[in-house]
Protein backbone atom coordinates (compact mmCIF):
# COMPACT_ATOMS: atom_id res chain seq x y z
CA UNK A 1 0.00 0.00 0.00
CA UNK A 2 1.19 3.55 -0.68
CA UNK A 3 1.13 6.77 1.23
CA UNK A 4 -2.08 7.84 2.84
CA UNK A 5 -3.97 10.52 0.96
CA UNK A 6 -3.42 14.00 2.40
CA UNK A 7 -0.85 12.65 4.84
CA UNK A 8 1.38 15.42 6.22
CA UNK A 9 5.10 15.31 5.53
CA UNK A 10 6.84 12.93 7.88
CA UNK A 11 3.68 11.00 8.68
CA UNK A 12 3.95 7.21 8.52
CA UNK A 13 2.89 5.63 5.26
CA UNK A 14 0.14 3.06 5.04
CA UNK A 15 2.49 0.07 5.12
CA UNK A 16 4.20 1.34 8.25
CA UNK A 17 0.92 2.10 9.96
CA UNK A 18 -0.49 -1.34 9.24
CA UNK A 19 2.65 -3.22 10.21
CA UNK A 20 3.01 -1.40 13.50
CA UNK A 21 -0.72 -1.65 14.15
CA UNK A 22 -0.69 -5.40 13.52
CA UNK A 23 1.89 -5.70 16.30
CA UNK A 24 -0.23 -3.50 18.61
CA UNK A 25 2.65 -1.06 18.84
CA UNK A 26 0.67 2.10 18.12
CA UNK A 27 -1.29 4.29 20.50
CA UNK A 28 -3.13 7.58 20.45
CA UNK A 29 -3.52 9.40 17.15
CA UNK A 30 -1.32 6.92 15.27
CA UNK A 31 -3.62 4.08 16.30
CA UNK A 32 -6.66 6.13 15.36
CA UNK A 33 -5.16 6.89 11.97
CA UNK A 34 -4.55 3.18 11.39
CA UNK A 35 -8.12 2.40 12.39
CA UNK A 36 -9.45 5.01 10.00
CA UNK A 37 -7.46 3.33 7.26
CA UNK A 38 -8.86 -0.05 8.29
CA UNK A 39 -12.35 1.39 8.29
CA UNK A 40 -12.14 2.46 4.69
CA UNK A 41 -9.99 -0.23 3.12
CA UNK A 42 -10.80 -3.91 2.81
CA UNK A 43 -7.27 -4.37 1.47
CA UNK A 44 -5.85 -2.88 4.66
CA UNK A 45 -7.99 -5.18 6.79
CA UNK A 46 -6.78 -8.21 4.87
CA UNK A 47 -3.19 -7.05 5.29
CA UNK A 48 -3.56 -6.68 9.05
CA UNK A 49 -5.22 -10.11 9.24
CA UNK A 50 -2.28 -11.67 7.46
CA UNK A 51 0.33 -9.80 9.52
CA UNK A 52 -1.34 -10.73 12.78
CA UNK A 53 -1.30 -14.31 11.62
CA UNK A 54 2.45 -13.99 11.09
CA UNK A 55 2.98 -12.50 14.54
CA UNK A 56 0.84 -15.25 16.06
CA UNK A 57 3.38 -17.78 14.82
CA UNK A 58 5.58 -16.62 17.68
CA UNK A 59 3.21 -18.55 19.91
CA UNK A 60 4.39 -21.79 18.31
CA UNK A 61 7.74 -21.27 19.99
CA UNK A 62 6.23 -21.51 23.44
CA UNK A 63 6.98 -24.50 25.60
CA UNK A 64 3.83 -26.62 26.00
CA UNK A 65 2.15 -26.24 29.38
CA UNK A 66 -0.87 -27.79 31.02
CA UNK A 67 -3.22 -26.00 33.34
CA UNK A 68 -4.23 -27.60 36.62
CA UNK A 69 -6.73 -30.45 36.27
CA UNK A 70 -9.52 -28.54 37.99
CA UNK A 71 -9.52 -25.55 35.63
CA UNK A 72 -11.93 -27.20 33.20
CA UNK A 73 -14.36 -27.89 36.03
CA UNK A 74 -14.14 -24.29 37.24
CA UNK A 75 -14.89 -22.97 33.77
CA UNK A 76 -17.84 -25.31 33.24
CA UNK A 77 -19.24 -24.45 36.67
CA UNK A 78 -19.02 -20.74 35.90
CA UNK A 79 -20.72 -21.31 32.53
CA UNK A 80 -23.54 -23.25 34.19
CA UNK A 81 -23.92 -20.47 36.75
CA UNK A 82 -24.38 -18.08 33.81
CA UNK A 83 -27.24 -20.21 32.54
CA UNK A 84 -28.77 -20.43 35.99
CA UNK A 85 -28.53 -16.65 36.43
CA UNK A 86 -30.15 -16.05 33.08
CA UNK A 87 -33.06 -18.36 33.88
CA UNK A 88 -33.62 -17.16 37.44
CA UNK A 89 -36.65 -14.90 37.91
CA UNK A 90 -34.53 -12.21 39.55
CA UNK A 91 -32.41 -12.03 36.42
CA UNK A 92 -35.33 -11.66 34.05
CA UNK A 93 -34.56 -7.97 33.97
CA UNK A 94 -31.02 -6.63 34.16
CA UNK A 95 -29.82 -5.54 37.57
CA UNK A 96 -27.02 -3.10 38.36
CA UNK A 97 -24.02 -4.76 39.96
CA UNK A 98 -21.48 -2.00 40.40
CA UNK A 99 -23.16 1.30 39.89
CA UNK A 100 -23.39 4.33 42.04
CA UNK A 101 -26.69 5.61 43.34
CA UNK A 102 -27.48 7.56 40.21
CA UNK A 103 -26.95 4.61 37.95
CA UNK A 104 -28.77 2.33 40.34
CA UNK A 105 -31.75 4.65 40.21
CA UNK A 106 -31.66 4.66 36.44
CA UNK A 107 -31.51 0.89 36.41
CA UNK A 108 -35.01 1.12 37.80
CA UNK A 109 -36.11 2.20 34.35
CA UNK A 110 -35.27 -1.19 33.14
CA UNK A 111 -37.47 -2.83 35.72
CA UNK A 112 -40.36 -0.54 35.04
CA UNK A 113 -40.12 -0.03 31.33
CA UNK A 114 -38.20 -2.96 29.93
CA UNK A 115 -34.83 -2.78 28.30
CA UNK A 116 -35.85 -1.30 24.97
CA UNK A 117 -37.96 1.40 26.58
CA UNK A 118 -35.06 2.28 28.86
CA UNK A 119 -32.88 2.65 25.81
CA UNK A 120 -35.33 5.05 24.23
CA UNK A 121 -35.53 7.07 27.43
CA UNK A 122 -31.77 7.25 27.66
CA UNK A 123 -31.66 8.57 24.12
CA UNK A 124 -33.79 11.47 25.30
CA UNK A 125 -31.13 12.36 27.86
CA UNK A 126 -28.54 13.17 25.28
CA UNK A 127 -26.34 16.03 26.34
CA UNK A 128 -24.56 18.59 24.25
CA UNK A 129 -22.46 16.85 21.65
CA UNK A 130 -19.34 18.02 19.90
CA UNK A 131 -19.41 16.14 16.67
CA UNK A 132 -16.12 15.17 15.15
CA UNK A 133 -16.69 16.73 11.76
CA UNK A 134 -13.30 15.76 10.43
CA UNK A 135 -13.74 12.07 11.02
CA UNK A 136 -17.34 12.10 9.90
CA UNK A 137 -16.46 13.90 6.67
CA UNK A 138 -13.64 11.48 6.02
CA UNK A 139 -15.92 8.50 6.37
CA UNK A 140 -18.64 10.19 4.38
CA UNK A 141 -16.27 10.21 1.41
CA UNK A 142 -16.89 6.51 1.09
CA UNK A 143 -19.93 6.18 -1.11
CA UNK A 144 -20.75 2.80 0.38
CA UNK A 145 -20.60 3.93 4.02
CA UNK A 146 -23.80 4.19 6.01
CA UNK A 147 -23.40 6.31 9.13
CA UNK A 148 -25.46 6.48 12.30
CA UNK A 149 -24.87 8.95 15.13
CA UNK A 150 -24.14 7.79 18.67
CA UNK A 151 -25.44 9.59 21.73
CA UNK A 152 -24.11 9.54 25.25
CA UNK A 153 -26.49 9.50 28.18
CA UNK A 154 -25.94 11.69 31.22
CA UNK A 155 -23.24 9.28 32.37
CA UNK A 156 -21.36 9.65 29.09
CA UNK A 157 -22.39 13.12 28.09
CA UNK A 158 -19.08 13.97 26.44
CA UNK A 159 -19.04 10.96 24.15
CA UNK A 160 -19.10 11.61 20.41
CA UNK A 161 -18.72 9.24 17.52
CA UNK A 162 -20.57 7.21 14.99
CA UNK A 163 -21.53 3.77 13.77
CA UNK A 164 -20.19 3.17 10.27
CA UNK A 165 -21.40 0.29 8.13
CA UNK A 166 -19.19 -0.42 5.14
CA UNK A 167 -20.87 -1.70 2.04
CA UNK A 168 -18.10 -3.87 0.71
CA UNK A 169 -18.30 -6.57 3.33
CA UNK A 170 -20.82 -5.27 5.84
CA UNK A 171 -18.13 -4.49 8.38
CA UNK A 172 -19.55 -2.29 11.12
CA UNK A 173 -17.26 -0.07 13.16
CA UNK A 174 -18.14 2.12 16.11
CA UNK A 175 -15.78 5.04 16.60
CA UNK A 176 -15.97 6.83 19.94
CA UNK A 177 -14.29 9.77 21.60
CA UNK A 178 -14.59 11.03 25.15
CA UNK A 179 -15.25 7.67 26.76
CA UNK A 180 -15.28 7.79 30.57
CA UNK A 181 -12.47 5.78 32.18
CA UNK A 182 -13.62 2.43 33.47
CA UNK A 183 -13.21 1.00 36.90
CA UNK A 184 -10.80 -1.92 37.20
CA UNK A 185 -12.33 -5.17 36.02
CA UNK A 186 -15.02 -3.51 33.92
CA UNK A 187 -15.39 -3.24 30.15
CA UNK A 188 -17.76 -1.63 27.72
CA UNK A 189 -20.05 -4.03 25.86
CA UNK A 190 -22.04 -3.48 22.68
CA UNK A 191 -25.61 -4.76 22.36
CA UNK A 192 -27.71 -5.02 19.24
CA UNK A 193 -31.39 -4.59 20.02
CA UNK A 194 -34.44 -5.64 18.04
CA UNK A 195 -37.67 -5.00 19.87
CA UNK A 196 -36.91 -5.68 23.51
CA UNK A 197 -34.21 -8.30 23.04
CA UNK A 198 -30.58 -7.19 23.41
CA UNK A 199 -28.12 -9.49 21.66
CA UNK A 200 -24.63 -9.45 23.20
CA UNK A 201 -21.81 -8.28 20.98
CA UNK A 202 -18.16 -7.42 21.58
CA UNK A 203 -16.55 -5.92 24.66
CA UNK A 204 -13.92 -3.20 24.56
CA UNK A 205 -12.11 -0.53 26.51
CA UNK A 206 -10.97 2.91 25.42
CA UNK A 207 -7.42 4.20 25.59
CA UNK A 208 -6.23 6.66 28.19
CA UNK A 209 -7.52 9.56 26.10
CA UNK A 210 -11.01 8.06 25.78
CA UNK A 211 -10.67 6.92 22.16
CA UNK A 212 -11.92 3.60 20.85
CA UNK A 213 -12.72 2.06 17.49
CA UNK A 214 -14.77 -1.07 17.81
CA UNK A 215 -15.47 -3.72 15.20
CA UNK A 216 -18.99 -5.01 15.71
CA UNK A 217 -19.01 -8.79 15.47
CA UNK A 218 -22.59 -9.32 14.38
CA UNK A 219 -24.51 -7.89 11.46
CA UNK A 220 -26.70 -4.92 12.38
CA UNK A 221 -29.26 -5.98 9.81
CA UNK A 222 -32.63 -6.39 11.47
CA UNK A 223 -31.67 -4.43 14.60
CA UNK A 224 -33.02 -0.99 15.38
CA UNK A 225 -30.71 0.13 18.20
CA UNK A 226 -27.07 -0.28 19.12
CA UNK A 227 -26.42 0.22 22.82
CA UNK A 228 -23.31 0.20 24.99
CA UNK A 229 -23.27 -0.71 28.67
CA UNK A 230 -20.58 -1.17 31.32
CA UNK A 231 -20.12 -4.85 32.17
CA UNK A 232 -17.72 -7.07 34.13
CA UNK A 233 -14.59 -8.11 32.24
CA UNK A 234 -15.35 -10.91 29.83
CA UNK A 235 -18.74 -9.48 29.00
CA UNK A 236 -22.23 -10.54 29.96
CA UNK A 237 -24.87 -12.66 28.29
CA UNK A 238 -27.53 -10.12 29.31
CA UNK A 239 -27.02 -6.48 30.24
CA UNK A 240 -26.34 -5.85 33.91
CA UNK A 241 -26.52 -2.07 33.73
CA UNK A 242 -28.44 0.56 31.76
CA UNK A 243 -27.07 1.75 28.42
CA UNK A 244 -24.84 4.80 28.56
CA UNK A 245 -24.32 5.14 24.80
CA UNK A 246 -26.92 4.55 22.12
CA UNK A 247 -27.34 4.72 18.39
CA UNK A 248 -30.63 4.68 16.51
CA UNK A 249 -29.97 2.32 13.59
CA UNK A 250 -33.18 3.32 11.84
CA UNK A 251 -32.06 6.88 11.17
CA UNK A 252 -28.91 7.60 9.19
CA UNK A 253 -26.79 10.55 10.18
Amino acid at each position, binding site marked *: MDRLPDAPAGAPDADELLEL*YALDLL*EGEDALEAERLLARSAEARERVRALRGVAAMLALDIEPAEASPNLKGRI*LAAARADVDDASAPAAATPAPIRLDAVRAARAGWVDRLGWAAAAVLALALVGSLVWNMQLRDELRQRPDATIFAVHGSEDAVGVTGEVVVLGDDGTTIVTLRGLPQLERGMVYQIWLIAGETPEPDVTFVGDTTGLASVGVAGSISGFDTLAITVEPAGGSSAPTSPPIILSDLTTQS
Partner: protein
Amino acid sequence: MAQGPDDLAHTETTETIASARSESELMARLRSGDDAALGELYDRYSGPAFALALRMLGERGVAEDVVQEAFLSVWRRASTFDTERGSVRAWLLSIVRNAAIDRTRGRNRQRQGDVALDDVAYRLAADDVWSEVAQRLERERVRAALRELPSEQRETLELAYFGGMTQAEIAARTGEPLGTVKSRARLGLRRLERLLRAGYENGPDGSLA
Protein backbone atom coordinates in the same frame (compact mmCIF):
# COMPACT_ATOMS: atom_id res chain seq x y z
CA MET B 1 -0.57 -49.74 -0.25
CA ALA B 2 1.25 -46.42 -0.24
CA GLN B 3 -0.69 -43.23 -0.88
CA GLY B 4 0.20 -41.13 -3.89
CA PRO B 5 0.26 -37.32 -3.94
CA ASP B 6 -3.33 -37.16 -5.18
CA ASP B 7 -4.49 -39.41 -2.36
CA LEU B 8 -2.71 -37.22 0.18
CA ALA B 9 -4.23 -34.08 -1.26
CA HIS B 10 -7.66 -35.66 -1.17
CA THR B 11 -7.17 -36.80 2.41
CA GLU B 12 -5.96 -33.36 3.45
CA THR B 13 -8.90 -31.63 1.78
CA THR B 14 -11.33 -34.04 3.38
CA GLU B 15 -9.77 -33.51 6.79
CA THR B 16 -9.86 -29.73 6.37
CA ILE B 17 -13.54 -29.77 5.45
CA ALA B 18 -14.31 -32.16 8.29
CA SER B 19 -12.44 -29.96 10.74
CA ALA B 20 -14.28 -26.84 9.58
CA ARG B 21 -17.62 -28.62 9.82
CA SER B 22 -16.74 -29.93 13.27
CA GLU B 23 -15.84 -26.43 14.47
CA SER B 24 -18.99 -24.98 12.98
CA GLU B 25 -21.10 -27.63 14.71
CA LEU B 26 -19.28 -27.04 17.96
CA MET B 27 -20.03 -23.32 17.83
CA ALA B 28 -23.66 -24.02 16.97
CA ARG B 29 -23.92 -26.13 20.11
CA LEU B 30 -22.26 -23.38 22.14
CA ARG B 31 -24.78 -20.87 20.82
CA SER B 32 -27.58 -23.15 21.96
CA GLY B 33 -26.14 -23.17 25.49
CA ASP B 34 -24.71 -26.69 25.43
CA ASP B 35 -22.01 -26.64 28.11
CA ALA B 36 -20.68 -30.02 26.95
CA ALA B 37 -19.61 -28.20 23.81
CA LEU B 38 -17.66 -25.77 25.99
CA GLY B 39 -15.93 -28.78 27.54
CA GLU B 40 -14.99 -30.06 24.09
CA LEU B 41 -13.70 -26.63 23.13
CA TYR B 42 -11.60 -26.63 26.29
CA ASP B 43 -10.17 -30.07 25.52
CA ARG B 44 -9.25 -28.91 22.06
CA TYR B 45 -7.69 -25.52 22.76
CA SER B 46 -6.84 -25.17 26.45
CA GLY B 47 -3.25 -26.32 25.84
CA PRO B 48 -2.17 -23.52 23.52
CA ALA B 49 -4.34 -21.03 25.40
CA PHE B 50 -2.71 -21.78 28.74
CA ALA B 51 0.78 -21.95 27.28
CA LEU B 52 0.32 -18.50 25.75
CA ALA B 53 -1.07 -17.03 28.96
CA LEU B 54 1.71 -18.56 31.04
CA ARG B 55 4.39 -17.25 28.71
CA MET B 56 2.93 -13.76 28.88
CA LEU B 57 2.19 -13.67 32.59
CA GLY B 58 4.68 -16.05 34.18
CA GLU B 59 2.40 -17.10 37.02
CA ARG B 60 0.27 -20.21 36.71
CA GLY B 61 -2.57 -18.92 38.86
CA VAL B 62 -2.92 -15.66 36.95
CA ALA B 63 -2.57 -17.50 33.64
CA GLU B 64 -5.40 -19.84 34.62
CA ASP B 65 -7.59 -16.87 35.52
CA VAL B 66 -6.98 -15.43 32.07
CA VAL B 67 -7.75 -18.73 30.36
CA GLN B 68 -10.96 -19.03 32.36
CA GLU B 69 -11.92 -15.48 31.41
CA ALA B 70 -11.26 -16.25 27.74
CA PHE B 71 -13.32 -19.44 27.61
CA LEU B 72 -16.20 -17.78 29.43
CA SER B 73 -15.99 -14.90 26.98
CA VAL B 74 -16.34 -17.36 24.10
CA TRP B 75 -19.25 -19.04 25.91
CA ARG B 76 -21.06 -15.77 26.50
CA ARG B 77 -20.50 -14.35 23.06
CA ALA B 78 -20.69 -17.45 20.87
CA SER B 79 -23.67 -15.95 19.10
CA THR B 80 -21.48 -13.18 17.72
CA PHE B 81 -18.99 -15.54 16.13
CA ASP B 82 -19.18 -16.30 12.43
CA THR B 83 -17.29 -19.46 11.52
CA GLU B 84 -17.30 -18.37 7.90
CA ARG B 85 -14.94 -15.55 8.79
CA GLY B 86 -12.25 -17.25 10.78
CA SER B 87 -11.23 -19.90 13.25
CA VAL B 88 -12.33 -20.29 16.84
CA ARG B 89 -8.75 -21.00 17.81
CA ALA B 90 -7.60 -17.64 16.47
CA TRP B 91 -10.47 -15.90 18.25
CA LEU B 92 -9.78 -17.64 21.53
CA LEU B 93 -6.03 -17.00 21.46
CA SER B 94 -6.59 -13.34 20.66
CA ILE B 95 -8.90 -13.06 23.64
CA VAL B 96 -6.27 -14.76 25.81
CA ARG B 97 -3.58 -12.41 24.58
CA ASN B 98 -5.71 -9.31 25.10
CA ALA B 99 -6.71 -10.42 28.57
CA ALA B 100 -3.07 -11.11 29.44
CA ILE B 101 -2.08 -7.66 28.17
CA ASP B 102 -4.80 -6.18 30.35
CA ARG B 103 -3.26 -7.93 33.34
CA THR B 104 0.27 -6.80 32.56
CA ARG B 105 -0.61 -3.24 31.70
CA GLY B 106 -3.34 -2.88 34.27
CA ARG B 107 -6.05 -0.35 33.93
CA ASN B 108 -3.68 2.56 34.32
CA ARG B 109 -2.85 2.21 30.71
CA GLN B 110 -5.72 0.73 28.81
CA ARG B 111 -5.27 -0.50 25.33
CA GLN B 112 -6.65 1.55 22.50
CA GLY B 113 -9.35 0.68 20.05
CA ASP B 114 -7.37 -2.19 18.64
CA VAL B 115 -8.62 -4.11 21.63
CA ALA B 116 -12.07 -4.05 20.25
CA LEU B 117 -10.91 -4.96 16.80
CA ASP B 118 -9.00 -7.81 18.34
CA ASP B 119 -12.12 -8.82 20.11
CA VAL B 120 -13.54 -9.81 16.75
CA ALA B 121 -10.26 -11.47 16.06
CA TYR B 122 -11.48 -13.61 13.24
CA ARG B 123 -11.85 -10.41 11.28
CA LEU B 124 -8.43 -8.94 11.84
CA ALA B 125 -6.24 -11.58 13.40
CA ALA B 126 -4.63 -14.89 12.65
CA ASP B 127 -5.60 -15.33 9.07
CA ASP B 128 -6.67 -18.89 8.36
CA VAL B 129 -3.93 -19.18 5.80
CA TRP B 130 -1.48 -18.99 8.66
CA SER B 131 -3.42 -21.51 10.66
CA GLU B 132 -2.80 -23.86 7.77
CA VAL B 133 0.85 -22.95 7.92
CA ALA B 134 0.89 -23.87 11.57
CA GLN B 135 -0.66 -27.22 10.84
CA ARG B 136 1.61 -27.99 7.94
CA LEU B 137 4.89 -27.03 9.45
CA GLU B 138 6.43 -28.93 12.27
CA ARG B 139 7.15 -26.92 15.36
CA GLU B 140 10.87 -27.33 14.87
CA ARG B 141 10.69 -25.87 11.41
CA VAL B 142 8.81 -22.86 12.74
CA ARG B 143 11.41 -22.49 15.45
CA ALA B 144 14.12 -22.69 12.82
CA ALA B 145 12.47 -19.84 10.94
CA LEU B 146 12.31 -17.81 14.13
CA ARG B 147 15.98 -18.49 14.78
CA GLU B 148 16.82 -16.96 11.42
CA LEU B 149 15.60 -13.60 12.64
CA PRO B 150 18.35 -11.28 13.89
CA SER B 151 18.19 -11.32 17.68
CA GLU B 152 17.29 -7.65 18.01
CA GLN B 153 14.38 -8.06 15.57
CA ARG B 154 13.15 -11.14 17.35
CA GLU B 155 13.45 -9.44 20.74
CA THR B 156 11.38 -6.52 19.47
CA LEU B 157 8.69 -8.83 18.11
CA GLU B 158 8.58 -10.81 21.35
CA LEU B 159 8.29 -7.69 23.49
CA ALA B 160 5.39 -6.63 21.29
CA TYR B 161 3.62 -9.98 21.06
CA PHE B 162 4.26 -11.55 24.47
CA GLY B 163 4.95 -8.38 26.44
CA GLY B 164 2.09 -6.43 24.93
CA MET B 165 4.29 -3.34 24.86
CA THR B 166 3.83 -0.31 22.66
CA GLN B 167 6.67 1.03 20.56
CA ALA B 168 7.37 3.74 23.15
CA GLU B 169 7.49 1.17 25.94
CA ILE B 170 9.88 -1.03 23.98
CA ALA B 171 12.11 1.97 23.31
CA ALA B 172 12.18 2.75 27.03
CA ARG B 173 12.83 -0.89 27.91
CA THR B 174 15.66 -1.42 25.42
CA GLY B 175 17.13 2.06 25.48
CA GLU B 176 16.91 2.26 21.70
CA PRO B 177 15.50 5.25 19.78
CA LEU B 178 11.86 5.00 18.75
CA GLY B 179 12.81 4.92 15.07
CA THR B 180 15.08 1.94 15.67
CA VAL B 181 12.29 0.08 17.44
CA LYS B 182 9.92 0.72 14.56
CA SER B 183 12.49 -0.42 12.01
CA ARG B 184 13.31 -3.60 13.90
CA ALA B 185 9.66 -4.43 14.34
CA ARG B 186 8.80 -3.90 10.69
CA LEU B 187 11.88 -5.69 9.36
CA GLY B 188 11.36 -8.59 11.74
CA LEU B 189 7.71 -8.97 10.85
CA ARG B 190 8.39 -8.84 7.12
CA ARG B 191 11.27 -11.29 7.38
CA LEU B 192 9.22 -13.71 9.44
CA GLU B 193 6.44 -13.46 6.89
CA ARG B 194 8.86 -14.30 4.07
CA LEU B 195 10.35 -17.22 5.97
CA LEU B 196 6.99 -18.70 6.85
CA ARG B 197 5.56 -18.15 3.42
CA ALA B 198 8.55 -19.94 1.94
CA GLY B 199 7.94 -22.80 4.36
CA TYR B 200 4.31 -22.90 3.37
CA GLU B 201 5.04 -22.92 -0.33
CA ASN B 202 7.48 -25.76 0.20
CA GLY B 203 6.13 -29.05 1.44
CA PRO B 204 6.35 -30.24 5.05
CA ASP B 205 9.50 -32.08 4.12
CA GLY B 206 11.05 -28.99 2.57
CA SER B 207 10.42 -30.02 -1.00
CA LEU B 208 8.34 -27.89 -3.30
CA ALA B 209 4.66 -28.71 -2.97
